[in-house]
Every structure is written in C-alpha cells, then in structure tokens.
C-alpha cells in the first residue's frame, strides 16, 4: 500500500458518509420548517398571554406578557375541555369498533374465493374515502334533517315515527356514522393488502386438513392480519381524538352540538372566536401530548403482536 492511496481513502469515506445526509436534507429542512418550527412556536405562545388595562380601547392598553404555566393550569382545570374529551371518547367507542369490524369483514369477503365483482366492490367501498370530510358531512346533514331526508320520508310514509337524528340523544351516532362511511374503505384496503400478502400454500394445506372457508378466515387469516389491524386501530384512535370537521359542519343544522363539543373545536373557538391564541396553543400541546401518550401506550401494550412479523 503506497502513501497516496492511504491518504485518499479516509477522504472518500467522509464523502461517502455525507451522501445520505445530502439526500435527506430536503426532507429535514421541510420537516423543520413546517413541523418542528411551528411546534416550537406553539410552545412559545403557550407560555404567554395578553394583559388588557382598563377599557382596552386606548393606545397600547393591550400588552403581551409572559404567563408561565398559567395557560396550562387553566387548560387542565377546564371542565368543558374534559367533558369534550369524554364526548369524543364515546364517539370513538362507537366509531372505531364498527369501522374496523366492517373493514375486516369486507376485506375477508373480498379475499374469499367465491366473491364476484371483486374490483367493483373494492372501489365502491373505497370511494367514500375520496370524498372530503366537509362535503361528506354536508351530504349526511341533508340526509338527517327530517323534512329533506328521503329516509325520514320513508319512515313517515310507513306510518313510523321520525327519528330525530340530530337530536341530543342520537347526534353522536349520526357523527360516528359519517366517520364509518368515510373510513371503512381505507381500512379495508390496508387489511386486504395484508391478506393478499399471506402465502396461498397456508390455505391449501388447511383445506387438505379439512378446514372450511369460515375456519380459514377465523383461524388463519384473522390472526395473520393482526399487525395490520393494530396499525389501523392506532390511526383510528388518533383521528377520533382529533374529530373536528364533522361536528363543525353539522353544528349550524342543530341545537345539540356546542361550539366546544370536541377538544379541537374548543381550540379553534379559543383561537379564532375568542382571539386568544395563547390558551389555544397550550390546549393544542396538551391534546398532542395526550394523543401521543395514548397511541404509544396502545402500541407498547400490543407491541409483541404488532411487530411479530417484523422480528421473525
């Protein structure tokens, strides 16, 4: 080995080491600019507040001052926020099992050998996912309102009493229904993809052993798609905690939804109706933290099942 190559080698290694960072740079810059920086700024805002003096109408009677953890104390002591969280939990308890149950059922049906019109069914179940949430909520709103709803019309003509779907008792089901309608398709595709990845030989040997299609579904397919189910559950839980568009869109149509029905609505209300971005920032951070804890907690609890496939 001569001196020249010995000197060149480490230099090339440094260059080699830098290459991946060069490729990562755009992503890192975007991530910092549009995610980390806003989060940091939110954190900063959450520690400040506005102090008004007297009437608040004169020049300079409104100052921004450091508030310490006061905004957080208020957020945590805010009963309306926690009541909103409870309402959202109730909503999630209806939405998540129904949506994922249907998604699993449809995925299994699509994967079964006897199902016809497979491509057509797959697309038609998936299609609602492509409808923006606000539009979906408006569409459903029309279907819920008694005098414009065809469903209510049918009930009336059958001599049955109308269902007040936007009333205080049923509103949570009405909201969950919109979520189910929009979400089943996406989750079904995720589970279906996982089903397609299962080696076909497994089914063959099961059939030779005398398994029925139903038994194959329950004993082979479902256990093997558990990781996919866990992933969809995590995403559903996160989406549930952040429910916003559906209640906001339905709110003008009914007396049963308050402006602080869900925690995100409360944040929006604080920031844009009360013009208090500081409390809104603190509440945002609390909601983000709770979401993080819940989703990581869930992932930890089911870790072994979720990542069994990866570690093998």
């Amino acid at each position, binding site marked *: 080995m001569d001196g020249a190559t010995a000197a060149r080698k480490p230099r090339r290694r440094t260059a080699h080491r830098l290459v991946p960072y060069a490729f990562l740079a755009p992503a890192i810059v975007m991530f910092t600019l549009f995610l980390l920086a806003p989060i940091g700024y939110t954190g900063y805002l959450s520690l400040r507040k506005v102090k008004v003096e007297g009437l608040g109408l004169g020049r300079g009677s409104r100052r921004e001052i450091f508030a310490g953890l006061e905004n957080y104390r208020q957020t945590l002591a805010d009963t309306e926020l926690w009541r909103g969280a409870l309402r959202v939990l109730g909503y999630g308890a209806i939405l998540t099992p129904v949506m994922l149950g249907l998604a699993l059922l449809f995925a299994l049906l699509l994967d079964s050998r006897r199902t016809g019109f497979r491509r057509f069914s797959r697309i038609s179940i998936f299609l609602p996912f492509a409808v923006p949430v606000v539009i979906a909520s408006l569409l459903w709103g029309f279907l819920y309102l008694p005098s414009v709803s065809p469903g209510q019309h049918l009930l009336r003509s059958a001599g049955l009493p109308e269902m007040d779907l936007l009333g205080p008792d049923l509103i949570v089901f009405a909201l969950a229904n919109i979520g189910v309608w929009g979400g089943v398709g996406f989750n079904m595709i995720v589970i279906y993809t996982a089903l397609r990845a299962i080696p076909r030989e497994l089914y063959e040997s099961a059939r030779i052993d005398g398994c029925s299609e139903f038994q194959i579904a329950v004993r082979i397919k479902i256990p093997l798609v558990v990781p996919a189910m866990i992933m969809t559950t995590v995403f559903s839980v996160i989406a549930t905690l952040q429910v916003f568009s559906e209640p906001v869109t339905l709110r003008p149509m009914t007396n049963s939804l*308050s402006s602080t029905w869900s925690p995100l609505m409360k944040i929006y209300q604080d920031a844009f109706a009360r013009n208090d971005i500081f409390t809104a920032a603190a509440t945002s951070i609390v909601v983000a933290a709770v979401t993080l804890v819940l989703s990581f907690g869930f992932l930890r609890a089911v870790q072994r099942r979720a990542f069994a496939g990866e570690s093998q």
Partner: protein
Amino acid sequence: MRSRWCRQLAAVAALVVGASLAGCGSDEPSPQATAGGKVELTFWTWVPKIEKVVDKWNAANPNIHVTVSTQAQGDDLITKVLTAHKGGSGVPDLIQAEYQALPTLVSNDVLADIKGDVEASKGKFAEGLWQQVTLGTDAVYAVPQDAGPMMLYYRTDLFQQLGLTVPKTWDEFAATARTVRQKDPKRYLTTFSATDPGWFAGLAQQAGASWWSIEGDTWKVSVNDSATKKVAEYWGGLVAAGSVDDQPMYTPEWNKALNDGALIAWPSAVWAPGVLQGNAASTKGKWAMAPLPQWSSGENKTGNWGGSSTAVTEKSKNKKAAAQFALWLNTDAAATTQLIQDGGLYPAAREAQAGPALAQPPAFFAEQNDFYPQAKSIADTAAGFTWGPNVNVAYTAYKDLFGKAITQKSSFTAALDQMQQTTVDDMRKNGFKVG
C-alpha cells in the same frame, strides 16, 4: 384514516405557521405616498362588485388611488386583519368591519380615530348607527356603510287563508302563533333560532337592551338586563308551549319550511328579500313586509340585525386620504346608488335611503310599492347600541346556551344569565376593568 390525520396535522401546522407568516409575503402594494403627492390606498372588503364604485373614485381622484382586495367575509376578515396587524406589515389602509367587530379591532389598536375627518358628517346617519361607530366614546372609528333595521316579513296568502291579521304588538304576535298551531298543526308562525345571535341581539335592541356600556374607564356588562330578559322570557315561553318552532335558521330544513309554508312569518332585517329570493324562490310575490311587532302598542321601535362600516387602520400612512375615501364611499349619491344596485346593500346614509336607487320595491316584493319608504321610516326608529370588546364570546355563548336550553327544555332566562356570566368572566380574565 391516515391521510385524514395527516391533513388535520397539516391544517394545524398551517394555522400556526400562518399566524407567524401571514404578515410577510403579500402581493398588496405597500401603502405609501409616492413622489408627486400621489397616494396609494388598499381596501379589504367583501361587498360584491365594489370595484365598480372604486373605479369611479379613482377616475375622479387621480391623486388618491384605491386598490380593492376582495376578502373573506365577516369574522374571517377580522381574524386576517388582526393577524396582519400583529405581523406588522401588509395591513390595508381601509377595511370593511361589521359594527360588532369594531370594539375588538379598537381594543387591538388596529383602527385609527378619524373623528377630525368625518365628524362633520354625523348628521347624515341615524343616531343609533353613529353610536355604533363611536363605541360610546369621544372617538369615531369608522363610517357606517349599511344597516339592517329589523321588520316583520309574512306570507300574505297564508295569513289570508288562515284568517290572520298582521300582529302589531308582541302579545298579538304570540296569540297569532297559537292560532296558527290550532288552525293548521303542520305550520308554525315562525322559529326561534339558537344559531343566530345577531338576530336575538337585534330583537333585544328593540326592547331597549344595552349589553355593554362605558363609564369612565370601566365596562358595564348587562347582557341579562331587564329588556333582554323580557325578550328571552317571551321566546322561551313560546318555544316551551310549542307555539313557535325551535329549528335553526339557514339550514336546508329551514329553506324547505319557508318554501312549503311550514313557516309563515320571519322577523328579519331589511336585507331579507335577497335571502328569501335565494332560499325560497318559489314564494315570489307571496310575501309582505310590516314593522316589527312592538312591546307596547303605540310604540315605534326596532333594532339592527347586521350591517357594517368602513374603517381606517392605525398602520395606514395616509389616514386622512383614507378617511376621505371612506366618507365618499358611504355618503356620495353616485357611490351609494352603485352600492345599492350592485352590492345589494341597504345604505346607512339617510339621503341614500330615500335615493332613486330605492324608488322601486325589491323584485321579490313587487306588490309592495312602498317597501323602501316604509323601510326608511322603520330604519329611523332603530335603537342605538354599544358593542363590547368580546362580542364573539357572547355570541358563541348564546349559540351554546340557548341551543342547550332548547334541547334540554330548560329556562331561557337561566341561559341568558349564564351568557352574561360567560361574557363577564372572559373580560375579567383578559384584564378588562368590568364594573
């Protein structure tokens, strides 16, 4: 689900970034006087086709050029202005602001006091409207643009069919509501909407309410004063007895009810013909307008539902020129005529209310020849009102609390007391001096 979650995250991130960046990067020409004494002004507004009016001004005033930037409506525009103001740049010289948003803007130092430039024109506007742009102080923060004096709209055909007479007092109105239910259980006289706080505020103004007032350096808040209590108790009684409907306004359901005659009257404002035309097109020519029912017979009062003003911002470098334009826009005969014809506004200026543009009744009320003369005499009776610095909070509280009172069949006056509490608590929390 995933993409929705991402979208929401992106939206939240965008909100936060937006708050910090909105001030930067803007294609508005920055307001400044250029060489030769020519002044450039920018104007944020949402009045349809207002460019036509502004073109007239620009043609007549080569030294003061106004550029219109059509913007989001109502509260969204206010949010945008507040953000730009905090960001420190990109603040327009002139903005359109609804009367109830003025105190919020003033409290954030956004608006300039233009008293010196416009005070002389005070007499051109109804007293009640002028009070709304002074906030009950010595300053003048805007020039009134349009007004929404309230009146009663009713279906002439159905009133005749059911043998009803137009109620002159609220007592008669309640009796009429009960009669409608007896004669035709499918119909209601009207509905009480928990989603329209501006409507309720207008009704309260008629009864003599004064939700905010200023004494020295202290705010007085009395959302639950005796006048408003009277209004709340009245409507609460009608709703509880099932004499009026309790569905919100401005929903597909409400449109249908107006169209098929399930609702046969609507206490609304002067701009109602436009709404009826858009939402209940099939009822053209079947409506008529009368003064709002009164609290005691022989009285002659109304309130305002909506309306906005033109204000000059504190950050404007050419406040004088801007105030001059604001005054011209809302008092000049040619300008107001165009605002009425193209913008669909009911002008705040008295002269314009009697102008040639309002000689004909609205197309939807072709039968009622004296529509605008009558509207003018009603507009003159509008009560004054001082808005507070947190109208948004009171309005949201109204929606939440009255909505809850309806679904839980609980007391409207209790809801009103809570509305007062929420409003005062919010002001105290921010450090306003509340007496």
